[in-house]
Each structure stands twice: as C-alpha cells, then as structure tokens.
C-alpha cells in the first residue's frame, strides 16, 4: 500500500552495542512505516529498544559502542544509513526532529531559550540572526509562551514551559517527521494533557508524521492512530488503535493491559507480568517472551516466531497462532 504520503520506511533494522561485557542486541530487526499526518505509538517496557530505534532514525547512536548492523531507513526515497555526516546534519532538525523525555536537562542552561530556537532556524535556512530571533519569538507564541520571554534562560522556565520550548525547537523548520521520546513522562498530569494537545494541533497544522515513544498506554490511546508493541528489540504486535486495543492478539500486549488498574472494578487484583526483561546480551532462543509467556509451548521456546498478518493493518509475531483455534484470554470487545 505504497502511496505518496509514505515518509519513512524502516525495514529489518538491527542495532547492537558492542561493550566489554558482551554484545547488547538492542534492536533485532524491526519494520516500521510512517505516513504524513499519521501518528504511531511505539509501546514497550524500558530497555525494549524504543529509544535506540528513534536514535537510529537520526543516526545519533553513540558510535563506540553502538553499531547499526543491518536494515534500511528510507526517507523520501533515500536510505539515510548511507548519508554522509554532512548530509545527516542537514536532515536532523529539518526533515526529522526529536523531543526528549526530561525537559529539565534537555535545554542548554547557559544559552537563552530564544538563542537555542534561533540556532535551529539558522542552521537550516540562511536567514540573518535577527530574523531567526524574530521567528523564534513567533514559535514561542505558537507553543503558548509569550514571545518576550525569549531572552530568558531555561532555569527561569517551569517544566511544562521548557517542554513547550523544546517542542518549539523541534518544529522550528517544519520537519516531515517528529519523534517524541516519552515527552510527558516527567510532567505532572495536567501539564501532560496540555502538551499532548499541543502536539496534536501542531501535527494537524504542519501535516507532520509523529512517532510517539511511550510506556503509557493512556497516552497512546489519546494521541496515536496506529500502535506498535516492542519487546526485546522486536515489534511483536502492530496495527491500528482498534486492532491492538480491542482485538489484542499478542500475550505480551495482553500482559500490558492486565497490569493497568481497572477504574471500574476497584477490587480487581493487578496481574503484573512475572519475571524480568531478558538480558539483552544473551537473549533466549526462540521467542524472547517465551520465559514469561503463560501460553508458551515447546515451539515458542525453540523457534523464532514469524510475523503473521491477521488483517491488512494488524500484524502479530507469535507462534501460538499456528494453531488456528488459539486465542488469548482477553476477549474481543
């Protein structure tokens, strides 16, 4: 279903970190497509390889020890893994830009907020310093902060305002793709809602594609059109919001939903997923989730599961579905 609004296509991306203690297999072959004005939620526990995937798209993985082993990341027709350092610098901030988790440390304390926004503009458009500074003020207004605070320093901003400033920086040059790496985790709930709403409005206005990295299913439900669930460096389930929320297929996704408190049924006991994330330096053979999967059988423990398309939009990677009658406990809504 290639159409003209496909912006990024990631195929079979493998990223390893080679350290003294052994090779950390952070990303083990994932495929992801991002389309204009569409937002995808990348969900999973910490250490699943979400951030590594994002950094790979910007080629910001620290080269010793990180290595992109395999795979292709196609951005408007070209594989950015072959791009030179110079070309990548042009792409970052112009075509793809990124927001980070902790606003308190994401802004440079010794430069004013205006300067940091203006810098992004000047890098990609040859405008004078003054002009860029004016644009920076407009951007601040756009994210809900009064322009004349542009010459203040980050320590004079609250957490929420800093995140807004960071968003302003990211959207300074109207990038085609915005990656948001847990943008609201460090904020309290009320600010969280405002920031998410801001991101949504800006997505609409600039027709940008959004990759929302989070472990909070509530955020995904509110913002994303599609969902991809990652576990131990692989996408185990991918589909539209309805596919994954209402027609959950993969046992791990079910585990995620079970560990959420159920507002309606206060007395219900939480059912957290037993065990720990597998050690990325020696992943179990077969399906990585098998040690913790209640439905795991011998096939799961010996063979790598194969991705299986349930519908045109819904994919799951679980050998249990070899047996057509298999279904997980979570009933379809």
């Amino acid at each position, binding site marked *: 279903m290639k159409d003209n609004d496909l912006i990024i296509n990631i195929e079979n991306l493998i990223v390893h970190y080679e350290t003294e203690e052994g090779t950390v297999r952070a990303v083990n072959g994932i495929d992801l497509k991002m389309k204009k004005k569409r937002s995808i939620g990348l969900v999973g526990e910490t250490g699943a390889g979400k951030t590594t995937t994002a950094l790979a798209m910007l080629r910001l993985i620290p080269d010793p020890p990180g290595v992109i082993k395999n795979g292709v990341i196609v951005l408007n027709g070209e594989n950015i893994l072959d791009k030179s350092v110079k070309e990548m610098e042009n792409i970052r901030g112009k075509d793809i830009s990124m927001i980070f988790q902790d606003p308190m440390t994401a802004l440079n304390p010794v430069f004013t907020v205006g300067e940091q926004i203006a810098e992004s503009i000047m890098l990609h458009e040859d405008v004078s310093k003054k002009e860029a500074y004016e644009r920076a003020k407009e951007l601040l207004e756009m994210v809900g902060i009064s322009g004349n605070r542009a010459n203040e320093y980050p320590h004079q901003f609250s957490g929420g305002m800093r995140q807004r400033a960071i968003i302003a920086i990211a959207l300074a040059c109207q990038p085609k793709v915005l990656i948001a790496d847990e943008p609201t985790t460090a904020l309290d709930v009320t600010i969280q809602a405002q920031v998410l709403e801001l991101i949504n409005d800006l997505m609409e206005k600039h027709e940008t594609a959004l990759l929302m990295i989070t472990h909070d299913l509530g955020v995904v439900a509110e913002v994303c059109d599609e969902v991809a669930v990652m576990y131990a460096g692989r996408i185990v389930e991918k589909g539209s919001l309805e596919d994954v929320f209402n027609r959950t297929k993969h046992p791990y996704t079910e585990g995620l939903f079970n560990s959420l408190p159920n507002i309606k049924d206060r007395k219900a006991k939480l059912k957290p997923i*037993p*065990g*720990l994330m597998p*050690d990325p330096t020696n992943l179990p053979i077969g399906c990585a989730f098998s*040690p*913790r999967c209640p439905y795991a059988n011998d096939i799961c423990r010996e063979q790598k599961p194969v991705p299986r398309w349930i519908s045109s939009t819904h994919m799951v990677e679980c050998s249990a579905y070899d047996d057509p009658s298999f279904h997980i406990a979570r009933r379809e809504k």
Partner: protein
Amino acid sequence: MDKTNVVTKSSVAASRKYKKNSQLYEIWRNFRKNKGAVLGLTVLSIIIITSIIANFVIDYETQIIRQVVPERLQRPSWKHPFGTDQYGRDILLRILYGSRYSLSVGIVAVMVSLAIGGVMGVIAGYMGGIIENIIMRSCDVFASIPALLLAICITTAFGANTLILMISVGVASVPAFARVARAAVMTVRDNEYIEAARAAGATRMRIMFTHILPNCMAPIMVQTTMRVGSAIITASSLSFLGLGVPPPAPEWGSMLSEGRSFIRDYSYMTMFPGLAIVITVLAINLIGDGLRDAMDPKLKR
C-alpha cells in the same frame, strides 16, 4: 512450572557476579581500562624495584661518590652508558642509586602534607562553623605565600638536610590538601548515612574517622598521587637554588642543577637526570589520573 525456576537461576548467577565486585575490585577493573594508568604503574614499579636492587648491587663509597679525575666529563660510551659528570663519577649508577632520594622525598613530603593538610581539611569540612572558617582562612593565608618561599625559609632556618627538605616541601602543599579534603568531606557529610549514624548516637569523632574519612579517601588519594610528582619537582627546584639535598648524595634534582652550567657541551649530564624525573613524575601522574577516573563514579562510561 519450570518457567519460574529458570528465571530464579539466572538472577542468582547475576547477583553472585556482583558480590565479588567489591569496591576495590571495581576500582581496579576501571583502573585497568585506562591505558595510561597501567603504563604508569608498570614504569613506577620498575623504578621502585631498581632503587631497591641498586641498594645492594652498587657500593656507595667507591662507585657513587668517589671522584676519578682522569675520567671526567666523558660522553656516553660503553664503559659509561650515561657518561660521567664533572667529578668523573658514573651518571647511570648515580641515577639508579639516586632514585631512592627522589622517590622518598616525593612520598614523605606528601605524607607530611597529607597528615597536616588532610586532617585539617577533614576537621574543617565536618565541624563547619567557626572552626572551618579559621582553618580555611589560615589555609588561604598559607596558600598566598609562594610555596618556594615557604620551603626556602624553613630550609634556611633549620639547615639543609634531606629530612628538613622533605618536611618543607610537604608543608608547602598543605593548603591544597586541606581544600581537597574539606571539599570531599562536604559532599559526604550531607548523605543520609551520616544522619543515620548521628541518629544512632555515634560521637563526632567516631563519625568523622569511621564514616566520613573512608568515603572521601578517593579524592584525597588522587590528590596524594598528583602531589608526589610536584613534590619531586619542588625538591629539584630547591636544588637549583642551592638548598636541596646536600652533596654528594645523587638526588636527581641536585644532579640536574649541578650539571646546568655544562648544558651546552655535556648536555647528557642534565638530560638523563631530567629524563629520570620526567618519566617518574609522568608515571605517578598517570596513576593519579587513572585512580581519579576509576574512583569517580560520575566519570564511569
């Protein structure tokens, strides 16, 4: 239900690995990663070993201080690999034998400044208030007096022998030690486990020396290794001013300063002692850096 015990077995193995990693082993593992530090350690141990062997192999009377006029100022040759000085004495033997002077001056001087400065710093850091002010202000005063002046005055006042030299070099860097010790104590002092100890009724002295001192050993240790290097240099500068270890002792600093008016035609006379000082101080400083990286948690990758 084999699934659950599979999980417990791997976690047990993991935790056993971590118990072995006591703090010292952890420091050693990081220290080993630093190339320069390992190099420094090997060079220093070679020097220490030679200075010990030299003590037995070389005879002080005949080979180190006897003046042999016909063999004066001979260039490096097979007979004298490092050449001979203006008194006709073999420079290689003197350097090997002299290593004990420079090393002992460096180490003892630093012990002196550690003892005085370190303790003052810890007291200042922990006590706070007026005591801290008095100690730190007097350190400022001492620091403003050029180290060399301090050393010169003490050496001239009490006569120039090796022990006085070591003490005066040590005293000169007391302020620096006090500052480092105080800073280290300040960071440790506000941790919870100090409150806990105080809550448990431990006396001030007990807290200071059993809880605080071991934890701020890291920066103090690093400062010590750094200072050994500069102590050797200060001792050689004192020899340059004629106040160093009295002749005929083959201390590298005095060999350097005695040879300086021969530097143009017989540069080997200053070059080899100079190189000896450079390599020793370099090795010590590299170890110091390695230690600092290994001990400072923030700097670990």
